[in-house]
């Protein structure tokens, strides 16, 4: 076995529908790092978890899918040696600008989560904030996990969190438009809103997400930025199989970043995995 899918070939399931949503042609939300940061840069709910792990790690940290550096910057400020990988050149550029403005110079590489190669090994590899869910197939998931494992120092830790479908999500009417985030623009004070219309593909475990980020102009008119994204969820039992197939020796699965047990209605699946 080469650590990815062995010599095996998994033929696709009978349905692997292309996204049918009207918004599927819209750009990825990562095409607009400025809007992304407006909505998400103030989030800090996961700092305690990842900062805690980074402090406990005895060696460098790799932030996979680091984006604009929301989690990386607090680690740098805490004196931690962090490198970053991201697929989006635009997100990475903004991450670099923010780090440099504070006098940091992390190594940032543009690469896919499933195909990165860094010149050193890490005490902690982390994939914060649901980024692992961008791996849409088992092949991508396994390739990502294998790359992470290969980049771990002998007693290194892989940690990541992904969403887990709750009963409410699973029974939500498909395509219903929901206000997900609302913030005040730091310059104008006017609201910036993120609406999301989700459709779940249960068989393929993919959530199709048509998003609108709406800003208000001076005259009160709505400026609409449509985005589209697919996210693949992983059931807890399936996650254990993926970790095993990717060569991890042991792991813990949690229902939250506070390390509460996985339960029937927990919205997060948090993974800590060791290769030895």
């Amino acid at each position: 076995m080469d650590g990815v899918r062995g010599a095996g070939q998994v033929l696709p399931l009978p349905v692997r529908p292309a996204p049918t949503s009207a918004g599927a042609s819209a750009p990825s939300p990562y095409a607009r790092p400025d809007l992304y940061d407006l909505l998400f840069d103030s989030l800090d709910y996961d700092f305690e978890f990842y900062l805690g792990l980074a402090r406990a790690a005895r060696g460098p940290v790799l932030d996979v899918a680091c984006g604009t550096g929301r989690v990386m910057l607090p680690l740098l400020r805490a004196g931690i040696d962090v490198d970053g990988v991201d697929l989006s050149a635009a997100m990475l550029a903004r991450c670099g600008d923010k780090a440099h403005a504070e006098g940091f110079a992390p190594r940032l590489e543009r690469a896919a989560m499933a195909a990165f190669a860094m010149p050193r090994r890490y005490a902690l590899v982390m994939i914060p904030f649901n980024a692992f869910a961008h791996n849409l197939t088992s092949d991508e998931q396994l390739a990502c996990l294998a790359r992470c494992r290969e980049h771990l120092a002998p007693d290194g830790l892989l940690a990541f969190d992904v969403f887990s479908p709750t009963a409410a999500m699973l029974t939500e009417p498909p395509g219903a438009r929901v206000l997900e985030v609302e913030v005040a623009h730091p310059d104008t004070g006017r609201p910036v809103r993120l609406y999301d219309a989700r459709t779940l593909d249960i068989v393929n475990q993919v959530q199709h997400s048509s998003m609108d980020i709406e800003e208000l102009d001076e005259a009160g008119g709505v400026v609409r930025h449509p985005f589209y994204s697919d996210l693949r969820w992983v059931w807890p039992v399936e996650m254990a199989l993926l970790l095993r197939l990717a060569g991890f020796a042991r792991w813990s699965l949690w229902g939250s970043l506070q390390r509460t047990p996985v339960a029937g209605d927990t919205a997060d699946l948090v993974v800590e995995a060791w290769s030895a």
Partner: protein
Amino acid sequence: MTRLEPPRHHVGPALYDLMYANVRGDIPYWVARAQAARGPVLEVACGSGRVLAPLLQAGVDADGLDADADMLEAARARIAAAGGRARLVRGDMRDFTMPRRYALAFIAFNSFLHNMTRADQLATLRACRRHLTREGALELALFAPDPAKLLEYDGTEHVSSEHVADGATVTVWDAPLADVVAQTTRVRRRVEIRREGQEPERLTMEFAVRWIWPEEMALLLEVAGFARMRVAARTSPREAFAARDTLRPGDFMVWTAWTA
């Protein structure tokens, strides 16, 4: 691991056959698959011969394995009544040894879901794989979970089926309780058998299944050492077991896996 525990919903062949008398849709499929196989066929968890007897009647060289001695005895009688003969072996699907290798091994109608742990699942898949010829295939038929249904499985009782079989009206009430983390459903079941002019016969039982998501099944087969696999979608064997273009929650998945 040579455990030989009674299966989890051991109910005896007479009641089993009455409860599942309306499950016939998959028989033509298995007959066709067995006839197309280039070599002998093994039905794992053959039970009382619901599928195995028609296979033998169709002239297929088929053996059967089951953990339940009473079910096997009923299978033997059913097959003999049809003028057939089969090698029937009592054994645990997780750890069995048959004296030959098969072009097709199959587990019909959700019986694979009696494997309640990942270790059980993998042991069963590996035991089946060991019994295949080089080009042989394993086929499994199991339902694709429907979250909308599973979320309703809170222990509340509902009528699960009602049909007429062997001159009796058989009504089944199920009170399923799903654990979405462990992927298990525990079912408390009541059965009432009514015959003209007789007191109704009433029974209760409990059993459990561990369901499997489509993507997870592919991973299990891969971990168990299968090199290639395919999944097809069909309607329930309680209905026509008809092929579908697309797999929908609640449909049946028919997995075929090859060792090479």
